[in-house]
């Protein structure tokens, strides 16, 4: 494989009918992926019985959940928790990441703390938060935020440090007030990193919410999954997980995907 051939694929291919081609490829890709996943799943469900449920049982279970009241209540509860934690972690993490990236002193102060925060196993965060704050919503929220924010700030920090310093100088010369310069010069440079961070934070929030609900909350999707697991109902575990994963995927594609398209217009 030479560079020129591989790059022609990305930069040189003429794209007059890109629309339909793209669509076909997307559909083909989705089919390929889903089919191969299905094959792997089926194989596992035969070889690792009864741990891995059969796709058939799982689909039935999905149907059952989709028609039950409790599922939706849990769904919205968990979504709410994820949204709250995701927002808080993204905002705090991004703010911290920017501060650290801009200033060596701030970096020197926070970097070891962040590294430590990253090191603490999630269950510890959660349990300590519950012990300190009681078992209300606050504990889960604080634990999630504490656990996710350092990840976000790491990503943002790297990007801040890689920024184009020439643009900083330009804004200084033209006396663009620093708050404005922040929004028009720095933040757009960080957009790719912020989007990555948002993806990260969204994904981690979900992973953690499962643990939080398993350990400290009697309700929500995570609790349902763990409850099902305790009862060894693997088909329910997988069914609930898949349903929720699909929903989250829709949300991410819909919101983040659209945002990305908008924010990166200038790159064409």
């Amino acid at each position: 494989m030479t560079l020129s051939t591989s790059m022609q694929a990305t930069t040189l291919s003429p794209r007059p009918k890109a629309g339909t081609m793209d669509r076909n490829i997307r559909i083909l890709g989705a089919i390929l992926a889903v089919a191969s996943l299905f094959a792997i799943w089926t194989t596992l469900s035969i070889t690792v019985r009864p741990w891995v449920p059969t796709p058939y049982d799982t689909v039935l279970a999905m149907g059952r959940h989709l028609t039950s009241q409790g599922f939706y209540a849990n769904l919205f509860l968990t979504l709410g928790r994820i949204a709250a934690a995701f927002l808080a972690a993204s905002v705090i993490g991004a703010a911290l990441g920017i501060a650290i990236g801009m200033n060596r002193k701030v970096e020197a102060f926070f970097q070891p703390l962040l590294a430590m925060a990253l090191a603490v196993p999630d269950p510890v965060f959660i349990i300590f938060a519950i012990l300190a704050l009681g078992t209300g919503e606050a504990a889960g929220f604080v634990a999630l935020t504490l656990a996710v924010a350092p990840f976000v700030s790491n990503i943002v920090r790297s990007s801040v440090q890689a920024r184009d310093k020439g643009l900083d100088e330009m804004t200084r010369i033209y006396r663009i007030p620093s708050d404005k310069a922040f929004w028009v010069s720095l933040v757009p440079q960080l957009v790719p990193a912020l989007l990555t961070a948002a993806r990260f934070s969204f994904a981690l929030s979900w992973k953690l919410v499962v643990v939080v609900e398993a350990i400290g909350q009697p309700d929500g999707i995570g609790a349902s999954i763990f409850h099902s697991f305790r009862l060894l109902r693997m088909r329910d575990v997988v069914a609930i997980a898949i349903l929720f994963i699909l929903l989250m995927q829709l949300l991410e594609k819909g919101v983040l995907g659209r945002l990305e398209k908008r924010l990166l217009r200038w790159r064409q």
Partner: protein
Amino acid sequence: QDVPEVRLQAVAGSLGGVPLMIMEAEGLDEKHGFSGVFELLPSDSAAQNFLIGNSDIAMDNDIIGVAIARAEGFDVTAFYPIGRLYLGIIVPGDSEAETPEDLRGMRVGHFGADSGTTMFIRSIVQEMYGFDVLEEYQFSQLGPAALVPLLEAGDVDAIFNFESYVSEAMLATDGRYLLQAAADYEEFTGGFAPWITNMVAHTSWLQENPELAYGVRAAYDEAVQIMQDSNYEVLREDYISSGLGITSPEVLDVMIENAATYDYFTNVWTPEVIEAAYGFLNGLAEEGRVLTEVPEGVMVRLEDLVGEPGA
């Protein structure tokens, strides 16, 4: 050596492990024809570990769990009882509550609606007092060990827990049983109470190793005998208290007192008891929350499954 190996597991910190500790310390395994590999596992992973076949016999499964596993296609069965219901609702000494009914609307800590402890307490309260704790109590969920500080800090008004945490909680809060599952239910039914833990193994293992199964059973009987003979003072042995994670002698005092009062272990495994236990399970299945059906063979007598010893 040519003595076959048997891998036995119990949940770390639970009383189900005490017979194992005694077997190991007193050499009861060799005496009964097997060489034991004893493991105490954290509660999060104990069930998985047994179900995937990483140990031969688990000492800490309740019959509800066995019924669930069987229903889901795991060929496991309980072949001997172990622990009585050394669990219940504990309140601090200054609590005004007298019966579980008084806790309605109050904050109660437990470690999961799907845990054996909660399920037993729930169905017993349902039967004795006619209400569902899951609906009437404000639950907080945390691991069994962490519930004790929670109660001590006053974050909850009561907890559902099992020994030795019961003793720890009593000591820490000068507390008492609001409901002692075994004693109160026996009193209510006039004799029968389900037990909590069992010796559980895969059916195939039992069929392949009948002598070993009998050997383990005998070793357990002897271990229980040792405890009862010493009036549970044997729990003061270092290897047991450290195995249970008890550091203070005061907790031990409470525990030994509780043990003497409520008797921790049982080896009554008669068809009648098994019958009654099936009845209990069927009751749960009718209600349909944790169980929808009671599969065959949740409990077996070795005599029925593999024939008389030495046969």
